[in-house]
């Protein structure tokens, strides 16, 4: 927890990682997933996912309820393994390093791959200020003089600064739902991650607050790589550069049907299943 934070994930394991996995082109991917199977005990929740996420882009994961979108998302920062008997087969590469290598500390991984949840969950005992710096303070990297700057920068990036700058000492839970979610985004980016995972970040919010979150995602895209799970197809269409469509097989395991530029997924999908879903015929 001291100074050797810069690159703590394991060195590249697979030299051929550059092979385009989802037809995304040549730029080296930020995240690359290969033949990923996810299990809860004996139940396989996700199977055979192979795809690549470009750096500084927004990738949407869509699909019907229960198709394993959230489970898949949570494998990317190893939050999934907090569930009892959860395990993973296959590889997830972050900048070419396998995050499931035994040498990887999942706690450190999560500082590079942050997460925003479906329901806004600011820490109720902490002020707005303390919420933003919670990840820095509680990870023991507190450099007191820098905190003020980090708070302002994170809140500005989360488009919340103007609304809260005069009440930083008030509890985080005193904010409205939409503001709380932006506070959670500020908290996630305060630890300076490279990737931000968002698990239906606007599904608990009203349409106006949702719009603000979507605008924010568009801005965050310039600094972060974003993977967002959403059940809202319009939202995927509005915010994402690329879209992954998941669905469920007869054995209830989720799998990736199609992955490609969002525009193509929505207007000219290759798979019939995708077309049925995006045109509203099922799901």
């Amino acid at each position, binding site marked *: 927890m001291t100074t050797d934070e810069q690159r703590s994930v394991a060195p590249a394991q697979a030299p051929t990682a550059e092979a385009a996995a989802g037809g995304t082109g040549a730029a080296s991917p930020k995240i690359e997933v290969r033949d990923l199977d996810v299990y809860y005990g004996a139940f396989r929740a996700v199977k055979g996912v192979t795809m690549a996420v470009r750096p500084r882009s927004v990738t949407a994961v869509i699909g019907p309820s229960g198709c394993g979108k959230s489970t898949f998302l949570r494998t990317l920062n190893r939050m999934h393994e907090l569930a009892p008997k959860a395990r993973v087969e296959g590889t997830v590469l972050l900048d070419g390093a396998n995050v499931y290598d035994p040498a990887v500390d999942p*706690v450190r991984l999560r500082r590079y791959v942050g997460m925003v949840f479906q329901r806004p969950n600011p*820490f109720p005992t902490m002020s707005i200020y303390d919420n933003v710096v919670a990840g820095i303070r509680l*990870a023991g990297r507190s450099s007191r003089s820098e905190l003020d700057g980090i708070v302002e920068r994170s809140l500005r990036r989360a488009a919340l600064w103007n609304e809260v700058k005069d009440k930083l000492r008030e509890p985080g839970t005193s904010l409205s739902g939409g503001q709380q979610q932006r506070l959670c985004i500020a908290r996630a980016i305060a630890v300076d991650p490279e990737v931000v995972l968002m698990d239906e970040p606007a599904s608990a919010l009203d349409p106006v607050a949702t719009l603000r979150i979507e605008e924010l995602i568009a801005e965050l895209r310039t600094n972060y790589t974003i993977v967002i799970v959403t059940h809202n197809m319009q939202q995927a269409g509005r915010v994402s550069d690329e879209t992954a469509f998941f669905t469920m097989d007869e054995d209830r395991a989720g799998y990736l049907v199609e992955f490609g530029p969002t525009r193509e997924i929505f207007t000219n999908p290759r798979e019939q299943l995708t077309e049925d879903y995006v045109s509203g015929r099922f799901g």
Partner: protein
Amino acid sequence: MTAAAVPIPDHLRRASGRERRAVVDRSMRIVTLACTVIAIIPLVALLAFVTINGVAALNVDLITKPPRALGIGGGAVTAITGSIQMVALATLIAVPVGLSAGVYVSELAGHRTAGVIRFAADVLVGIPSILVGVFVFTFLVLPFKQYNAFAGSVALAVIMVPVIMRTTEEILKLVPGDLREASLALGIRRWRTVLSVAVRVGWPGILTGIMLAVARAAGETAPLIMTALGSRLLNIGDFGRPMDALPLFIYQNARQPYPALNEQAWGAAFLLLLAVLVINILVRARSLRGTSR
């Protein structure tokens, strides 16, 4: 806004007062109310009895002077200071142990282990407290051939630990899991998450459990009989020797044939009741404030 209505048909009609259903309803109401009154009478009577007799026995000597022969001009300062010291030491021992055990069961133990420990704690809560006294007697009094206040504190701590442990666990269970997830997703270590998020969020409730355990320990007599023993000498800080406590003082003095001593027992009983009541009321006030937020 009244729409035209037809007369109420029989199948919708309320029971008339003479029907069996209505009679049963009324009598059950009366029976349950009567039982409630019976249940509350002892509490009210006890409060009234102790207050009336106790207030009459209150005087400056009671809280400033040690006991004297026949009780003339003596007081209960030995018992007051003894109770405070022993309960304080017991709390010092029981809080870290009970809190850590509660955290372990709630946050770290496997499902089966947690079940076993929880069951053990529940059994421990129900163990007759005199047995706790005997148990502590065998290894903290017998080897030293000396009744001592430390043994008394340990016995009280044994009573307190399962209470604190169970409330800690129950409270931590109420802390939403998504707060822990939020913390872990920030790259915060597990132990930090448990302490700074889970325990911190549940702290008001945990504190309530600690205060209830303190109230319970303050009122315990049986575990002290074979450990701290009681003493007529003022003992400040010497945990290697016998020490008095309010419940012991009440127990001893109430059995004496001297009215002055009986009088002091009432006074001490009132002080003890007051202390326990104040703790309980504080706890209630705290939890009320907690829910109104």
